């Protein structure tokens, strides 16, 4: 069976002339660049630096589980209120956190200080913030969860946990696009 498959692939490539080979490479580039365009386009539309994030921890169970995909927006004119699910970044930490706002103190001039807590955690997030940091501010917010799709992000988690798996998938996809002929 394996021999047959190899033969099929090779046959495809063998039948290509130079022109078709260039075409395949360009096709590959096209896919990569359109993915990039969609991502950057979403960034513009949602105003968030990462409009789609994957939930990595169980701290928001039973709302979000590991591997759920969240869609974020970050419109500046939209005020932060209690009950919002925000994604925020802490200085000195690479991975953003998804938690719920439980306290808001807003001044007349619009500056806002707020505190978050994971639904599944028993204490608020002050222990997670940078040392000495008691409140989050608007600049810390990456986005606010507007919608979610369950399970879809599990692929990303697998890729993060097993880097070899990631390279394998990337290599397979790349090879498939390059070799496969329409």
């Amino acid at each position, binding site marked *: *069976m394996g021999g*047959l*498959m190899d033969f*099929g692939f090779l046959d495809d490539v063998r039948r290509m002339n130079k022109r078709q080979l260039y075409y395949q490479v360009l096709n590959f580039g096209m896919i990569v660049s359109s993915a990039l365009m969609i991502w950057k386009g979403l960034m513009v539309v949602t105003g968030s630096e990462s409009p789609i994030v994957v939930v990595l921890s169980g701290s928001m169970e*039973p*709302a979000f589980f590991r591997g759920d995909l969240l869609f974020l927006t970050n419109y500046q004119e939209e005020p932060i*209120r*209690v*009950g*919002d*699910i925000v994604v925020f970044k802490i200085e000195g930490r690479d991975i953003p956190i998804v938690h*719920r706002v*439980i*306290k*808001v*103190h*807003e*001044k*007349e001039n619009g500056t806002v*200080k707020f505190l978050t807590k994971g*639904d599944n955690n*028993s204490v*608020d997030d*002050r222990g997670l913030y940078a040392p000495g940091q*008691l409140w989050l501010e608007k600049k810390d917010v990456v986005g606010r*969860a*507007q*919608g*979610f*799709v*369950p399970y879809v992000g599990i692929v990303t988690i697998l890729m993060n946990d097993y880097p070899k798996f990631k390279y394998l998938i990337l290599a397979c996809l790349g090879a498939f696009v390059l070799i496969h002929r329409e």
Partner: protein
Amino acid sequence: MNTFLSRLNTIFAFTLSVMAGLTFLCFLSTFFNDHKTLVSINTGKIIVKSVPDYSTSREKNDLGFVVFDVQSDILSSLIVPTTSLFLYLTAEYTTQNHKLNQIVMWDKIIKRGENAIIDYKSMNTKYYFWDYGNGLRGNRNVTMTLSWNVIPNAGTLPKVMGEGSHRFAFPDDYTYFDVNHLEFLTLNSFPDHHDLIQNGDRNVNSHCLRKVHLTTKMSPNCYRCLLSSDLQAYRYNSMRGWGGPETQEPTPPSTPHNLSTPHPNLTLGV
């Protein structure tokens, strides 16, 4: 090109599109949900203390204690059952320094299949009611609302505010408890309840607590320290100057009590 791979590919693609379609239907089913529900909220005893918040700074901040009732039938408003609901009770008020303050006093997660009828009496706040500063004392206008975040199977995450709010005022004076007197009171003046203290069981029945409450006229926060397991914590807290709200569930039922008629032995200072 009917190779094994291409068939596998077709099946995979078809499965994916079916799943995507179903997910989209899930999203549609909850998108048009009308979530409006009536909520009734009431408050019992309300006090405010001025104590240092050691979790933030050593400055004295206002700490409110509110006993509340909340009632609502949320499930009846949901056409399509959702994965879970996140309910939260918000207190909103204005202070001199801050135009808008919102504090979650209590929250609850209702999972699918669980009873979604909310009917709680004389609840203590789940989280500390700390103000950012000293804006609670004499605050005439604190609005309590119940809201919930609907978590569907997939799709948008609407936040719904229940119809009906409750407005209350904080007293004009700070309340202080003299804990030494309180211990003296509970241990010596009421030998009937020694069993309760000896028992030290967290699940002490409400009848017992109610009896203590009626005889001592103590606030729920106060008499909870009768449980010896809590006594230690209460002593510790009292050294810092506060009792602290109940973070453990379940909260024993009690009737809110008016502090203006304290027991003679219970020292209340202003």
